[in-house]
């Protein structure tokens, strides 16, 4: 039998409640359906045996009633049914003389090809063994296969094993059923990508970041986590499916960085529709993010789009859903323009001064991580600035005042150095 890279366990670790019936085949029961304690199907597959035939290898997986119904009705292949395992895992068991001799777990994406049914293996009419018993037990006739777009995204996320961000353009100039103007799609994707990246940079670098031009090293490190890629589209009117290029999971919370970034994007959209909630949300983001958001909203307004945004993780089962149309985009743009926010923050940065005007106290400072800060020295310490050397590293303490006045398009950021120290060992 094939040696598999796996996690060994001391038992099957599946909440099996009872046997329901044999799905395949009449000649030899290779695929048997059980019911889990939550009344959802758990399927057992025979896949291999030793040369003498005395050790059999099986794997079990959790599936949904909907997936099972789809397979029975010939709408998905057997391979899709297996790969769409709800928790992404296959629970293997080697059995000799009716006794389990080895239990182990692998990811459904790691199933060797020789253990997969052929990709074009769909259940044929009259091929199933106890279909009626299985259908009746799980009440499959009550399961609707008329999936809406959110269900479709969930289904795709499970089968592709990735988080999905759906940008669904319902209406607008150049938007048809299954077609869309290249220019409209391109503009919308670019503006959304900019917003996503800025929220990502806020997450990784901090909302108090300066103007960031990433170094090649930073690009290599950060880009995969703040970038997305298109992995599919749906004809409904026109839906683009995006996924993060890469995700890092927190071992303790089980939540990915990209889930937290998506959450921030959706919170910004959700809370910006009302002036009172926008006030508190505004200060949670850098001005760069707000600018990107405004760019996205302006395009929606100008192209008279109706956009639905959905996000789903197959790992945490979290979902975020929001909608924007040109009317709501216009209201949010007004809300942002009319916002009256004044916030103060204190933070420190290490780096080098690039320019200082000793008369006015104006400075340009570039931090060690290549962020640029401009502003003025506080009057009380301005005189000391004459002693600053451009070659030395300094730690500066910045008092940042963010002032967003009604009628002003962008927030005004005043960075004032309230302390500086030469960096010494």
């Amino acid at each position, binding site marked *: 039998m094939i040696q598999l890279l796996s996690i060994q366990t001391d038992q099957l670790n599946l909440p099996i409640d009872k*046997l329901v019936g*044999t799905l*395949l*085949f*009449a*000649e*030899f*029961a*290779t695929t*048997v359906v059980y019911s889990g304690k939550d009344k959802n199907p758990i399927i057992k*597959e*025979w*896949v*291999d*045996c030793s*040369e003498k*035939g005395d050790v*059999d290898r*099986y794997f079990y997986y959790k599936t949904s009633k909907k997936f099972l119904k789809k397979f029975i009705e010939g709408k998905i292949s*057997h391979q899709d049914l297996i790969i769409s395992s709800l928790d992404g895992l296959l629970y293997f068991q080697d*059995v000799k*003389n*009716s006794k389990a001799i080895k239990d182990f777990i692998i990811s459904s994406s790691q199933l060797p090809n*020789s*253990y997969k*049914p*052929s990709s074009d*293996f769909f259940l044929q009419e*009259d091929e199933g063994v106890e279909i009626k018993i299985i259908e009746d037990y799980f009440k499959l006739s009550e399961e609707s296969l008329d999936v809406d777009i959110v269900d479709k995204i969930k289904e795709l996320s499970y089968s592709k094993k990735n988080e999905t961000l759906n940008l669904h353009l319902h209406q607008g100039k150049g938007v048809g059923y299954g077609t869309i103007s290249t220019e409209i799609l391109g503009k919308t994707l670019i503006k959304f990508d900019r917003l996503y990246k800025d929220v990502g940079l806020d997450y990784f670098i901090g909302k108090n970041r300066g103007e960031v031009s990433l170094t090649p090293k930073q690009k290599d490190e950060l880009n995969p986590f703040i970038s997305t890629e298109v992995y599919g589209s749906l004809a409904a009117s026109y839906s683009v499916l995006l996924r993060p290029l890469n995700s890092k999971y927190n071992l303790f919370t089980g939540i990915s960085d990209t889930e937290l970034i998506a959450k921030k994007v959706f919170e910004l959209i959700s809370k910006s529709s009302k002036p009172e909630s926008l006030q508190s949300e505004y200060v949670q983001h850098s001005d760069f993010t707000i600018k990107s958001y405004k760019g996205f909203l302006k395009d929606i307004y100008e192209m008279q789009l109706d956009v639905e945004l959905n996000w789903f993780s197959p790992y945490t089962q979290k979902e975020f859903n929001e909608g924007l149309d040109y009317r709501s985009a216009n209201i949010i743009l007004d809300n942002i323009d009319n916002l009256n926010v004044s916030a103060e923050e204190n933070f420190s940065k290490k780096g080098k001064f690039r320019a200082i005007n000793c008369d006015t106290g104006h400075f340009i400072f570039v931090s060690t991580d290549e962020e640029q800060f401009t502003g003025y020295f506080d009057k009380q310490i301005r005189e000391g600035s004459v002693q600053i050397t451009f070659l030395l590293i300094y730690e500066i303490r910045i008092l940042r005042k963010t002032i967003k006045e009604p009628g002003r398009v962008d927030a005004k950021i005043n960075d004032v150095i309230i302390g500086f120290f030469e960096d010494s060992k």
Partner: protein
Amino acid sequence: MNFKYQKEIDAFKGFDFSVFSANERDCFRWVFADIKDHRNFKPKFLLDPTVPRDKCIGWALSFFETKEKALTRLNRLTRNKEFLFKKLGTHIANGQLSKYDGISNNADKLGHFSLFEYKGVDLMSKFTVVEQIAN
């Protein structure tokens, strides 16, 4: 006459044997290269002891009406489970069932039928390997 697995079959009181009858018929079965291999004429409940023994038919043997149908079906099954040859057989054997061997039902659309063997029957001696289908 008693069946080979009479004790086990007795557990299924309501099983409908009326569609089964004793017949003379030419038939084909998946087997391993050596016709005397102990796995060759075992019902599926014995081939896979983990399968819940909840249906009487699991004590019957599978046969096909023609070699082509036996081959087509095994090809179909192994497109689903590549290693099923290791369990069901790598060859096809042909034999003539007599009415003293057991009772069988009519073949289904796939040409498959089931036989409940009578006690004391030795099918190994009645079948000959006719074709290799896998290594």
